[in-house]
């Protein structure tokens, strides 16, 4: 048995806490390429096409390399997701590669006297130790008691690893902290989700309604390119947001809705479309199940009814519904992406799905296209065992995967070993800032028997791990092929542009090596990533050499529209289900219902959060190139409210939520671009670990303030916009 650890404390990774180690940052600052002669064009030694990992969209990039250093990144013109363009984060990928704070050697938490410390160890020792601890947990509590948190493309290899062990407890914050309710809402209605990349035909749309979706600040490259193309050809935008977002400023209509009342607006739009006979009647007649029930359901959901809930003028609700109808089927309500807001999120997504069906836009140009993907053969591998079921046990009737949030609960179930999660494998996912309620997540991590974190950077999650395994960045490693469904089918490769930094290793190697230590090497029957990729491509009659050279192979495009009057859907009725029998059978409202949000207590504002174009959550808030542009987040507050509180722009304030949790200080942005009943900040700041030499204590963390969540009764999503904050002037100690 491994040396018993009392309860794990947060361990910083820096020169002073590492035993016999090298100072972690010494000599690394100069890794960022030095200035060349002014405006002399650098001739690269090589240009390596690969795909990005500054977020999870997977755009094709070209890495320009000189003397084994990447000195710039450009969009790959051949890659259909980038078209030669990149977002600011992708452009700033150099900062992820050359961050002086990067992890570079495997670390094991160890005890010296009374003190816990990191010990730098060899890969052999780190992998042996990890395999031993995982085997102990498996032997004692079963493989289901090991959970994998995974975010990112490399997670696939760790899913194979966990499944090979017999485990099935695989969770992703991209589900219950992000787009899960949207996928469930569309699956229940159309039989399929909208996926990532979303299958919306933005460039051809003549009218788009954005509900809380702040594209332009949320900077998914292709999505923003396409919205810009729509704007350039004069499409009408309708933006529904309590905040005058960038996309609101590009819109003909801005609907500054009262937070949490979006479903009321959607039902009123449906009411106008139906009562005024403006819906696509033939499409609905041929393709929809339960129209009569739905029409009766929204009969009294008039714009006047919605006005009371949303604060939006009835005339504006009518006008925008007519604008959508006028442009149908080349019009759509954007399905959104981060949609875990108020707990009734699957129902709101159902309402969005239904309004779209009233616009008759499924499979239509300017509506929802039918995505295609390139079929690439799997590497011949033994079948993975069927696990006994995941933990925590299913509590949400229509969930398709377990919730990350529930794994925290299950990790804290002292005395109930049958229901408890005992170990975490965390891949590329800073769980304490990803899940709501940082304090609760840390409590869960402290209760675990074992945590192994695989990452490129020290972070809140590595601070509570027993073993930290340093991974290559995306610019140093191979990964599995990408065949994201899109308007054209393609396969893209991630391949190393430069050699590995320090002792970092690729994720595939870490997963395969761990499997071998666990006696499960047979599930990774390939020699290395090149063998794995070459075999997959060869079996698919695709050229590895072409893929290495171009970064992407685009297949033959098949039709992405379906002009037949009647389409077949993957729902039980084979129709678009306005009335959902699956929901009724699960004891849930079969028609999308509106629930009024809880009001803020006096003196409190609703806390809303979103994204900066320059950052991807907490993943980038130490990136030297990106932090230089946006070094901290700000708290948006309405000008009138700031005046009443006697607070001026630029003042630093502390935030305190309804449960007395504090964060900050954060700088005030005083603006008319937000309603009076809410405040807003960008997610991912307020880092609390001093190992991050740049990102430490900049701005505030919404994750700490979201101590309350409202669970989505359909799939378990954690509605996070249900917290209220008050603010007071910060005084420097």
């Amino acid at each position, binding site marked *: 048995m491994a040396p018993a650890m009392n309860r794990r404390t947060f361990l910083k990774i820096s020169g002073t806490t590492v035993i016999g180690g090298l100072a972690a940052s010494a000599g690394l600052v100069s890794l960022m390429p030095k200035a060349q002669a002014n405006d002399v064009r650098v001739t690269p030694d090589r240009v390596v096409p690969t795909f990005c990992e500054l977020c999870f969209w997977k755009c094709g990039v070209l890495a320009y390399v000189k003397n084994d250093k990447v000195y710039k990144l450009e969009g790959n013109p051949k890659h259909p997701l980038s078209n030669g363009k990149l977002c600011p984060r992708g*452009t700033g990928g150099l900062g992820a590669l050359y961050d002086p704070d990067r992890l570079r050697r495997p670390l094991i938490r160890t005890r010296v006297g009374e003190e816990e410390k990191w010990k730098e160890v060899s890969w052999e020792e780190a992998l042996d130790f990890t395999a031993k601890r995982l085997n102990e947990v498996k032997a004692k509590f079963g493989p289901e008691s090991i959970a994998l948190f995974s975010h990112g493309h490399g997670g696939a290899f760790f899913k194979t690893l966990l499944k090979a062990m017999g485990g099935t407890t695989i969770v992703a914050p991209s589900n219950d902290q992000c787009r899960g309710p949207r996928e469930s809402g569309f699956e229940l209605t159309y039989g399929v989700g909208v996926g990532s990349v979303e299958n919306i035909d933005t460039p051809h749309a003549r009218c788009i309604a954005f509900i809380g979706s702040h594209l332009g600040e949320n900077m998914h490259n292709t999505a923003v390119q396409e919205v810009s193309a729509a704007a350039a050809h004069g499409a009408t935008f309708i933006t529904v947001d309590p905040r005058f977002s960038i996309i609101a400023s590009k819109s003909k209509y801005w609907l500054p809705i009262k937070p949490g009342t979006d479903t009321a607006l959607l039902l009123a739009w449906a009411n106008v479309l139906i009562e005024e006979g403006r819906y696509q009647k033939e499409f609905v007649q041929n393709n929809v199940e339960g129209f009569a029930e739905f029409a009766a359901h929204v009969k009294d959901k008039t714009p006047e009814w919605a006005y009371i809930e949303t604060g939006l003028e009835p005339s504006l609700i009518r006008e925008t519904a007519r604008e959508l109808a006028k442009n149908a089927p080349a019009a759509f309500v954007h399905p959104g992406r981060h949609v875990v807001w108020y707990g009734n999120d699957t129902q709101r997504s159902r309402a969005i799905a239904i309004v779209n069906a009233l616009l008759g836009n499924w499979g239509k140009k300017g509506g929802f296209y039918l995505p295609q993907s390139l079929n690439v053969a799997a590497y011949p591998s033994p079948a993975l065992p069927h696990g006994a079921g995941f933990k925590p046990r299913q509590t949400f009737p229509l969930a398709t995967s377990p919730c990350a949030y529930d794994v925290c609960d299950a990790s804290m179930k002292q005395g109930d070993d049958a229901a408890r999660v005992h170990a975490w494998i965390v891949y590329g996912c800073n769980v304490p800032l990803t899940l709501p309620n940082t304090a609760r997540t840390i409590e869960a991590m402290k209760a675990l028997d074992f945590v192994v974190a695989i990452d490129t950077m020290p972070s809140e999650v590595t601070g509570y791990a027993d073993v930290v395994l340093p991974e290559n960045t995306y610019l140093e490693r191979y990964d599995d092929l990408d065949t994201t469904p899109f308007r054209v089918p393609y396969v893209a490769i991630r391949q190393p542009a430069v050699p590995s930094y320090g002792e970092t290793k690729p994720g595939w190697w870490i997963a395969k090596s761990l499997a071998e230590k666990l006696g499960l090497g047979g599930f990774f029957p390939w020699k290395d990533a090149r063998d794995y990729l070459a075999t997959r491509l060869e079996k698919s009659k695709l050229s590895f050499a072409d893929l290495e050279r171009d970064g992407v192979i685009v297949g033959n495009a098949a039709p992405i529209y379906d002009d037949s009057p009647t389409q077949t859907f993957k729902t039980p009725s084979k129709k678009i289900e306005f009335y959902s029998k699956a929901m009724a059978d699960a004891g849930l409202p079969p028609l999308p219902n509106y629930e009024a949000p809880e009001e803020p207590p006096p003196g409190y504002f609703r806390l809303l959060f979103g994204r900066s174009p320059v950052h991807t959550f907490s993943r980038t808030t130490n990136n030297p190139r990106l932090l*230089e542009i946006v070094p901290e987040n700000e708290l948006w507050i309405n000008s009138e409210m700031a005046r009443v509180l006697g607070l001026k722009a630029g003042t630093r304030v502390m935030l305190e939520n309804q449960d007395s949790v504090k964060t900050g200080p954060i700088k005030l942005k005083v603006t008319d671009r937000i309603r009076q009943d809410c405040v807003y900040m960008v997610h991912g700041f307020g880092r609390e670990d001093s190992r991050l030499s740049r990102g430490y204590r900049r701005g505030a963390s919404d994750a700490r303030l979201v101590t309350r969540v409202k669970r989505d009764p359909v799939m378990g999503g954690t509605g996070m916009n249900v917290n209220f904050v008050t603010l007071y002037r910060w005084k420097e100690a």
Partner: protein
Amino acid sequence: MTRYAMTVDQKLCVTCNACVIACKNENQVPEGAARCWTVQVEKGSFPLLSLETRSERCNHCENAPCVTACPTGASHYEDGGIVVVNPDKCVGCKACIVACPYEVRYMHPEGYVDKCTFCIHRVREGLAPACVTVCPTKALKFGDLDDPRSEVHQELQTRQHKVLKPEEDTRPRLFFLT
């Protein structure tokens, strides 16, 4: 004659800053300095608001006060009227920084004044500046004002546009489509 110019479409620009970062990579701009940046101008009051969004840089003026002010000839007109600082001739006197009404210049740590060059090293190879190449919204366009086939020429023919501080009579080659 070639007259290089850039257009910035305020209707498309979302101030994402991809231009700023691509420029810093391309031109090895030191930390803390920038050759281009983004600007948001908020107007009106809740809920009747408007927002101007644009990316700014050196205006490459046809009547450039920096060139007039420079005592050593370091600031000069290059091919197609691109205004460039020759670091070998620059003595770091900052006369150009004072003369420029647009505050586009900074002192490079190596002792010379630096600013946007429209990526002249790329333009000479037939490439667009790095900021134009990266721009995911295609808000930025670059080309020869005197070439009727160029996008900048066509944009200025068909779109309403403005320049910054027209009262300075600098005749900028950076145009904002409104």
